[in-house]
């Protein structure tokens, strides 16, 4: 077990850190509520979040399509009608995808179970599947739900569920894989990216395990997983030194038993939730426990969030916010809505991360890769927009990356920010109090004297003007800093 944090050290700053990393942060009252749960009470609260299914029903359009029926209907159409139908389908898919992105961002913002959503985001980046190839938003939604259901469950179960997930079957071509001609794509990525990492298997292992995943299909009527036995290669396979008539589940069992697996997964999780370059001793400990707990994810997260290492000064506010984190955390801290679908997607794309559209099966690199001179300026300008300071120029989004993006056009959006709440009139005249309140809201900890002085300078400069516009400008200034990019 990792050395746990001394409960006497639990405070607002640590509660904020926990909420920022295990979830998407929060407004000061939310952090205070978590602080009051004490330690390790606060961790247990996050691990045991309520089920939020009723709060976030599935989108109206998220229903399977009877493919046989649709194909039949299309075949009866004239070439022009077919073209029209194809266009209609593409248009609907685009619209539904935008809706799906908004659905998920809103869920991240409002869920009473933030840890599960944050983990769902992690697993989405891990089993990175793109709507660009999968096309049907329904399948992307279905995968998202599967990730969510297994997020705090069991890793072995998760992998087996992903092997059968229809979106994954499309994405890595498993549904094309047949006995006479097994497709290696899934088998390779399964080991290279999802479970073991390069160097822990051979090409033979890939070829042999590919045979085990033959016969995995999508039912044409209700788009669920279907097993086509006659397409499955039932023969003997040699895998990791064992021989047997392995099927997909058997292979996954063997993969997960490989000692490289717990190391690989726990490292990835540590790097996402804590920091890069973890101490080897720490990694060994959590990998060992992960395996001992039979790959249950909840105990792993408990161990991480209770550890003193997690709350080290090296870790707190040392991680660059991903674009999704930036958007959701900002909307929670400023208590504003998520911008409507297409606008949010455009903004996220310019920042480099659109959910459901990872650049490739390796997901997003993250960390410093999020920041270029252009994305940094964009974040600064987006915060201006978030505080309601005027229209924002955002480049028009195109789903098909091979077409040129449209020109930037100014988009107006009222975030309905409540400035009277964020900066109550009674404290505005006192620059010290005002800066302290906003610093707590945006950074949850004190900044360097130099930074604090600069903000005070601004307030003093503006006096006696303490209007809403001044507050907006101040917020914008505070968010246009390197510090605001950290969580």
């Amino acid at each position, binding site marked *: 077990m990792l050395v746990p944090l001394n409960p006497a050290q639990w405070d607002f700053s640590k509660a904020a850190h926990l909420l920022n990393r295990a979830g998407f942060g929060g407004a000061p009252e939310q952090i205070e509520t978590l602080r009051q749960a004490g330690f390790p009470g606060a961790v247990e609260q996050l691990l045991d979040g309520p089920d939020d299914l009723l709060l976030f029903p599935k989108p109206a359009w998220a229903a399977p399509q009877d493919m046989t029926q649709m194909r039949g209907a299309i075949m009866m159409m004239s070439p022009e009608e077919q073209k029209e139908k194809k266009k209609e389908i593409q248009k609907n898919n685009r619209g539904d995808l935008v809706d799906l992105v908004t659905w998920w961002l809103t869920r991240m913002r409002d869920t009473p179970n933030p840890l599960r959503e944050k983990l769902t985001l992690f697993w989405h980046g891990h089993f990175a599947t793109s709507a660009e190839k999968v096309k049907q938003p329904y399948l992307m939604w279905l995968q998202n739900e599967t990730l969510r259901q297994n997020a705090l469950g069991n890793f072995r179960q998760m992998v087996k569920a992903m092997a059968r997930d229809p979106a994954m079957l499309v994405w890595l071509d498993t549904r094309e894989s047949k006995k006479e001609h097994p497709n290696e794509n899934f088998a390779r990525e399964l080991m290279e990216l999802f479970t073991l990492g390069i160097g822990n298997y051979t090409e033979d292992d890939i070829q042999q395990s590919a045979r085990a995943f033959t016969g995995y299909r999508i039912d044409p009527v209700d788009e669920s997983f279907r097993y086509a036995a006659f397409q499955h290669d039932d023969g003997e396979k040699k895998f990791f030194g064992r021989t047997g008539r392995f099927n997909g589940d058997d292979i996954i069992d063997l993969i997960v038993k490989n000692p490289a697996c717990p190391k690989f997964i726990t490292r990835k999780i540590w790097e996402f939730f804590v920091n890069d370059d973890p101490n080897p001793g720490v990694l060994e400990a959590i990998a060992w426990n992960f395996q001992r707990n039979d790959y249950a994810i909840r105990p792993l997260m408990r161990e991480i969030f209770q550890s003193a290492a997690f709350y080290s000064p090296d870790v707190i506010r040392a*991680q*660059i916010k991903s674009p999704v984190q930036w958007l959701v955390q900002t909307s929670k801290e400023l208590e504003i809505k998520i911008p409507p679908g297409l606008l949010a997607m455009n903004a996220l794309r310019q920042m480099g991360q659109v959910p459901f559209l990872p*650049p490739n099966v390796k997901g997003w*690199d993250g960390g410093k890769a999020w920041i270029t001179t*252009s994305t*940094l300026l964009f974040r*600064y300008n987006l915060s201006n927009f978030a505080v309601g300071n005027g229209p924002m120029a955002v480049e028009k989004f195109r789903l098909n990356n091979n077409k040129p993006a449209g020109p930037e056009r100014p988009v107006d959006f009222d975030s309905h920010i409540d400035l009277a709440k964020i900066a109550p009139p009674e404290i505005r005249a006192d620059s010290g109090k005002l800066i302290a309140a906003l610093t707590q809201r945006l950074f949850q900890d004190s900044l*360097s004297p130099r930074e604090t002085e600069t903000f005070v300078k601004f307030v003093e400069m503006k006096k006696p003007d303490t209007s809403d516009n001044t507050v907006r*400008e101040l917020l914008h200034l505070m968010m246009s800093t390197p510090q605001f990019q950290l969580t």
Partner: protein
Amino acid sequence: MDDHIIEPHTRTLHTRREFLRTSMLGAAAAWTLPVFLQKTFLTLDAMAADSPIQTVTGKDGTILVVLQLAGGNDGLNTIVPYADDAYYRARPVIGIPKASVIPINDYMGFHPKLTGLKALYDEGHLALLQGVGYPNPNRSHFRSTEIWQTATDADKVDSRGWLGRYFDSCCKGADPTVGVSIGNEMPQSFVATNPTGVSFSRPEQYRWVNPGQEGMGADSSETLYRELNQPDETNAAAMDVNDGGSVAAIGGAKRQGGSTLDFLERTALDAQLSSDKVREISKKYRSSVEYPKSPLADSLSLVARMIAGGLATRVYYVSLGGFDTHTNQVNTQDRLMAYLGDSISAFCKDLQAQGNFNRVTLMTFSEFGRRVSQNASNGTDHGAAAPMFVLGGAVKAGVFGQYPSLTSLNNGDLIYNVDFRSVYATVLERWLKAPSEMVLGRKFPLLPIV
């Protein structure tokens, strides 16, 4: 290049020297440096001059412009083998009629809309490379693009781009604008160990937007913004006193955020300085030449203005999309070829008027060509080998490589005879004066094009 051999504290110092030198190279006139920076600059500049790899900037050195044709440009309809019956047999509907083709020789010619490129060819400024590709061609957009951007073998992966590796090995201490991508994204070819380069699409918007510009309020918050977006002076000032000591060891406790915060502050400073410079140039320089109306022309005219204004850029990256012509390609291609030919032609005229044409080489590439036979939708599907254009004032014009056979195919696709890495090696060695073997991982034969 191997940072592991440098001790931690000197490395921190080294990177601080890099950005300080950087800040001088790109500094906007209006911004005054704190005293300690001015004082130490001369020493630092002298130290940089001693380093083994001399950093050249675009101000005085040669410039490479990389133009990506995104989607897979159909080479067969770009450089048309009008004398080959096999071409018309394979493309009964979409084949370009012989009478429309602009002949280069008695076998092939340019697509009718490429009058601009034909003129450049006749003037001796265009090298046409035929049959460019790589072994084990991949027909996936993202994978093949990745191969061209990272210059790896088809079965290998590298997260760094070929230009990123060039920046890593040869551009230490260079200005943040050493690589410029027109657009909002950094191309994979720029990905480097040390993040390098800037991207922007519109100079007017490449800045910190602060409303309330009217009145003196805006000026002041702009000043405060700048103060907040540079490395912490107190640390750097102490460095001056404690030369050689670890920055982190000075003044007690290590800063929260550590090296990540350093990185953010450096990027913020780069963003400030490069955006100032870019906007200053874009206000001052207008093209003397008229550009056609197209997204490519917009991008190239912006590049031309930056070159005229002396931005210290060595590599510009520009992209034009729409080449994935699976259906009804004739009309789409007419439009794209017109964009290509006319925009490049205007760009070259602009550079000639500036007197910079001999310093600039432009290179096109696409992730693959397309299949020989047309498909059922009067378009073409993903293929393999295709032509590349390299042009500029110093380019040795002519036709290089072989036109691939239209009948001896690989799975219905043209077989390459020029490895694209040779083209990269040539521009690296001969144009950017960089060691190509270091950047590309091994030796590739050079082509006599520049």
